[in-house]
């Protein structure tokens, strides 16, 4: 068996999710190659070479891959992927965009968002917003798989010494182009991989009030997330949404503030190790999954939390 893992990165640094995907690939067994496709992404190729358990790193460095357009990545990965038994990528918005194209071009099914590897052809994945867990077997010769990073403990990003090979494979579908982007700048840890996440919901009332959560987050070194209702209401940007259709997080500690606990929200955070809920409604469903529940008005509890943490930390 030979597995091609597509690295997740931003052209300058390797994203941690890649280490989780390599872990999933290791669970299958066999040789693992990593593809770094991007523009001026040499440093990422170097970093990928250090990942534990990787045999070879392929670097496709070209302007056509600079913005990770699904049309171009799809062509490249389908072309390279023909030589592998498995193609794995993280189930983030990049992988979700290009991987189904790869599968379609190879005329195989895709298995989305796996959380466990049962064997080389059988995988476990949540369906129905995590309300059911399916074990799925593929009969295709090439398995195209997206991996939910929180399902796998990351391998080490150090200690490997894979050969790094430059590829001369330029695939331009010529049907799409990059126009612009609005990247959220934050000094806080990345939501998807943070050890502590504090999220606010509709109960926060406005974007200004999220500052209260940010102050607590900064004390804890936490990332700040949100429910869909808070994003829809315009309190915070879309990249903060946790849930079935937002980001999937599984931190050591998840603090839900003014969030009712709809199943679509739970789908994104119920694998957290410890869950805290602060809500003024003692009947709120979030309390059914919370390890520690505090029935309180958040406008009193959150400033108190900040004070108590200052004392305790």
């Amino acid at each position, binding site marked *: 068996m030979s597995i091609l893992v597509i690295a997740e990165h931003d052209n300058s640094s390797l994203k941690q999710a890649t280490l989780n995907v390599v872990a999933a690939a290791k669970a299958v067994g066999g040789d693992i190659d990593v593809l770094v496709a991007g523009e001026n992404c040499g440093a990422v190729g170097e970093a990928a070479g250090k990942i534990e358990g990787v045999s070879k790193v392929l670097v496709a460095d070209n302007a056509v891959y600079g913005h990770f357009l699904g049309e171009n990545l799809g062509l490249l990965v389908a072309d390279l992927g023909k030589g592998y038994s498995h193609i794995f990528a993280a189930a983030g918005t990049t992988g979700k965009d290009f991987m189904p194209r790869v599968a379609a071009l190879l005329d195989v099914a895709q298995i*989305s968002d796996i959380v466990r590897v049962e064997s080389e052809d059988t995988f476990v994945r949540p369906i129905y917003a995590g309300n059911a867990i399916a074990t799925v077997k593929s009969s295709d010769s090439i398995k195209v798989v997206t991996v939910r990073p929180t399902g796998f403990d990351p391998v080490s990003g150090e200690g490997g010494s894979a050969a790094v090979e430059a590829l001369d494979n330029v695939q331009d579908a010529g049907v799409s182009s990059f126009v612009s982007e609005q*990247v959220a700048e934050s000094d806080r840890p990345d939501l998807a991989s943070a050890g502590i996440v504090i999220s606010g919901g509709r109960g926060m009332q406005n974007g200004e009030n999220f500052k209260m959560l940010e102050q607590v987050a900064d004390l804890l070194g936490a990332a700040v997330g949100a429910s869909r209702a808070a994003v829809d209401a315009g309190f915070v940007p879309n990249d903060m949404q946790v849930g079935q259709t937002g980001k999937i997080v599984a931190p050591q500690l998840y603090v839900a503030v003014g969030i009712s606990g709809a199943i679509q929200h739970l789908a994104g955070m119920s694998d957290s190790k410890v869950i805290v809920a602060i809500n003024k409604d003692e009947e709120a469903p979030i309390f059914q999954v919370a390890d520690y529940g505090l029935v309180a008005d958040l406008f009193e509890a959150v400033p108190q939390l900040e004070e108590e943490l200052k004392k305790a930390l």
Partner: protein
Amino acid sequence: MKVLVAVKRVIDYNVKVRVKPDNTGVDLANVKMAMNPFCEIAVEEAVRLKEKGVATEIVVVSIGAKACQEQIRTALALGADRGIHIETDEEVQSLEAAKLLKAVVEKEEPKLVILGKQSIDTDNNQTGQMLAALTGMGQGTFASEVVVEGDKVNVTREVDGGLTTVALNLPAVVTTDLRLNEPRYASLPNIMKAKKKPLDGMTPADLGVELAPRLSTLKVEAPASRQAGVKVADVAELVDKLKNEAKVI
């Protein structure tokens, strides 16, 4: 320009999902079904494009058992002009759905195809991208804004890092995210009118597509359930527990 919208009949998003005791799947007997929420957003976007004078005709297509004609009628009531029902009682996986839609695209030659980014049953998030690849079209996935200009469409996409905008040659595929629009409700007169709108039936065989599922589901289980923990009296107790009991801070 002609817009094709694909819609799927799924379990209503408010329904509590239960796994069958024999672990073969999810219990769908006597459960309320509805149009997938992302497909509603797709229909709404097409209707808005028509109201703006950009779209001239909206064709809505659904694949599945007879019952999914209900969802086609709903889309017609919301403003689609005609429906196509690809009827099958078999399970249709994403790749096959994409092949069926490709056949429809070849017949109908729409300038824009709009689909939901995922269906809330299988949560696959694949069909739109697969259709785009099979037809060689560009794709604007997870769209929060769609602007047609001449022979291009600019799509703003919700991505992990924020927002990114791409320009696609038409014809193109767009898949909808939650914030693209807020779907309207169908009015009673429009529901009545929808009953008279044309709805064509066909089978996968009519479209020359053989259903050959590649994935088999070995079992479906309920997730490990979390137990509710304790209620704490105040913030001081909370911080104490987090520090000394759970040891997470």
